[in-house]
């Protein structure tokens, strides 16, 4: 297992260099620059333009800019935002817990509903449940997030008044951030009603962000289960006289889980994309919204630093998924 982890870690080095390169050049490939956007409709004189470009160091040759940026990265300096003038690292980790909290809730929501739905659909193949579940999953998968979110807000917050419209917690609650996770902080605050308020604010964004992963996981679980259910050892298990529940839950599901875990891992990327829209609509102070704002402002350091940090996190998650894989399936960790 140790060697396996080392090999995986070794692979991360070239990936990290690649990501730093891509992050650096990606934002510079976009037309325009931060100085022009700062000036807006007013326009800017060539002298002033040159002065500001120089001040930010954007007048240096690209390779030089890259070397400075990469050296800083290696020293753990992710740069300073042009717009807020604050260190990217601080900015990022102020907002990251909000995104993480929402993403974890969305994944739990998707797995808790998606895996059982997929299993039942596979076991009761071609039943009404199977057809309904899979049709619903198809609809969920194709749902435009923006529209779906607004619809839920209008119905549940506007018409029924069951959930708050947006935000992370009622404005009445004002307590220090300890972890940045509102569910935990609200409990720590010891204020009556704070935790309930945080939960009620999480419901709609969780559903919206979790919808697509839910659909994907349900469909993936179903097809993986169908494949496994046709295997010889399932027939053997049945023939041994094991209860149908034991056959499905222990013998079939465990083997069907490998592709499902991969899918869940891959959904992290989908979650990041979904987070941009979900965070915008629900006024959720996370990194999705922040990245988009930074891109629009051509805040080069923020985009570069943000992308590298996100990449590091995704790489970390993938590493964990790989290790889980190894745990679930010993064949993989012994491969050379």
């Amino acid at each position: 297992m140790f060697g396996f982890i080392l090999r995986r870690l070794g692979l991360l080095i070239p990936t990290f260099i690649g990501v730093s390169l891509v992050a650096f050049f990606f934002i510079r490939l976009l037309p325009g620059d931060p100085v022009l956007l700062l000036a807006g409709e007013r326009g800017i004189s060539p002298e002033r333009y040159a002065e500001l470009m120089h001040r930010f160091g954007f007048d240096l040759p690209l390779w030089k800019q890259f070397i400075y940026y990469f050296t800083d990265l290696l020293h753990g300096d992710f740069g300073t935002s042009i717009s807020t003038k604050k260190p990217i690292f601080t900015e990022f980790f102020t907002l990251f817990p909000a995104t993480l909290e929402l993403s974890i809730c969305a994944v739990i929501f998707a797995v808790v509903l998606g895996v059982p739905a997929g299993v039942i659909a596979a076991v009761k193949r071609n039943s009404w449940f199977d057809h309904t579940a899979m049709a619903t999953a198809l609809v969920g998968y194709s749902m435009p997030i923006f529209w779906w979110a607004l619809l839920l807000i209008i119905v549940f917050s506007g018409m029924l008044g069951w959930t708050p419209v947006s935000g992370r917690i009622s404005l009445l609650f004002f307590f220090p951030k300890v972890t940045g996770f509102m569910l935990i902080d609200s409990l720590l605050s010891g204020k009556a009603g704070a935790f309930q308020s945080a939960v009620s604010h999480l419901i709609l964004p969780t559903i919206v962000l979790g919808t697509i992963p839910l659909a994907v996981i349900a469909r993936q679980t179903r097809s993986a289960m169908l494949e496994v259910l046709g295997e010889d050892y399932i027939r053997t298990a049945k023939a041994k006289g094991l209860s149908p529940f034991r056959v499905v839950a222990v013998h079939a599901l465990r083997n069907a889980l490998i592709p499902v875990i991969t899918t869940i891992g891959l959904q992290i990327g989908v979650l990041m994309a979904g987070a941009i829209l979900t965070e915008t609509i629900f006024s959720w102070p996370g990194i999705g919204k922040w990245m988009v704002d930074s891109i629009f402002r051509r805040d080069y350091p923020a985009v570069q630093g943000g992308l590298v940090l996100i990449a590091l996190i995704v790489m970390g998650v993938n590493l964990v998924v790989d290790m889980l894989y190894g745990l679930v399936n010993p064949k993989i960790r012994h491969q050379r």
Partner: protein
Amino acid sequence: MKTMSRLLAATMLVAGLAGAAHAKTFVYCSEGSPEGFDPAPYAAGTTFDASSKPVYSRLTEFERGTTNVIPGLAESWDISEDGTVYTFHLRKGVKFHTTEYFTPTRDFNADDVIFSFQRQNDKNDPWYAYAGGTWEYWTGMDMPNLVKSIEKVDDYTVKLTLTAANAPMLANLAMDFASILSKEYADKLAAEGKQPDLNQLPVGTGPFQFVAYEKDAVIRYQAFADYWGGKQKIDDLVFAITPDASVRVQKLKAGECQLMPYPNPADVETLQSDDSIQLMSQAGLNVGYLAYNTMMKPFDDVRVRKALNMAINKKAIIDAVFQGTGQEAKNPIPPTMWSYNDNIQDDPYDPEAAKKLLAEAGVKDLSMKVWAMPVSRPYNPNARRMAELIQADYANVGVKVEIVSYEWAEYLKRSQDKERDGALLMGWTGDNGDPDNFLAVLLGCSGVGGSNRANWCNEEFNNLVTKAAAVSDIAERTKLYEDAQVVFKKEAPWATIAHSTTYVPMSKAVIDYKVDPLGSHRFDGVDLAE
């Protein structure tokens, strides 16, 4: 740990206030996050709404709901005969905010004024570079060239010497970038090596003092008890940052906030019919226009420009693009601005006359570009749609149009190119309520290759607006600007298209809110019904 204790203390403070009988909390669903809390390095209205408006005061102020300049931290001022020396007499006994992070030991005085301006003006000032040196408005309003010196005469007198007479100066000093910061606070931060805090934890003399900012989520302020203009009627002011316009509407309806900015034009009608909501509106201080590049053929010929103006059906544009929430423009300045010349006749919508005039100018089979902005602005919510309507209008007079668009930054860059082809959709929102801020900035000779997108340098017009900026008598200035608008219409460097209407939806409980013609959102003087 320090942040935490500060927050804890602030929490207790707020909790204490909440415990007190009838603490009034006003929640504003703002549209975005401020970039920082020092207004001077920035140019965005969103940042000003959260920084300069609640937290700071200026030497002069705009009277609420108008563009009139009234005394602020300067109680009065004298202007020299030749209009180049302004002597400001400062208000005495003005207190700076006492916060968790700063306790002032002295009142506001001339040192604070000198500090607030000098840091933007003097490249050698230790504070010049603290926020990247991007003093956008100071340079944008041409202050480096206008200001010769800023001197302290005594603790309560400041002398501002200009290089030439400049009538809009008093209005400039009421703008956000001219907010007065505490020198004592800045000195303390510098001594502790915590300069960036000047932009994060603000201290001012304004109606509200800063309590806490949770990035991208909530900003909290409380009324400043010792405000020089008197304590506010509301106790707490909260900005709930809500980027999506439809969600802001839902929040307002659900009572999660009392006021919101920038509704979608499509939502205005529903809001109008809602019993719990009052919808205030005001003609925005802006103009959306189509600028011909008057340096390039055939647009250097005034007949061509006039003909193209006559080909545009503005009414259809107001209906389709603004969904009725705007009005047709005939002048380059909006009708709410003083010196607006209402006697001017707009070029009529007359495709036949347009065809004739084009033939007269010897233009046949003209094909041109119309540039459509990729972003939505109050003065042009949907430039693409507008360009399509203009394309159809021009087709009616035999002019073929290719619509071009670039990503915003690239659009801004290319729009400044003097050899740009065709006509460009653009617009402007006023900064200080002075006609100079439209006419000289957008159409003066010095703006060619920059903010003057028509690259139009007309001697007669330029002389009029230059002269108007140098005299201080309002009647005389009015006459000069009115004449300038006559020249503008005759020469037609733009097709003036529209002025938008600003809508501000709010709960019926809001009392005495005034829509700011300059487009900002300020809550001094506002009250909430019990």
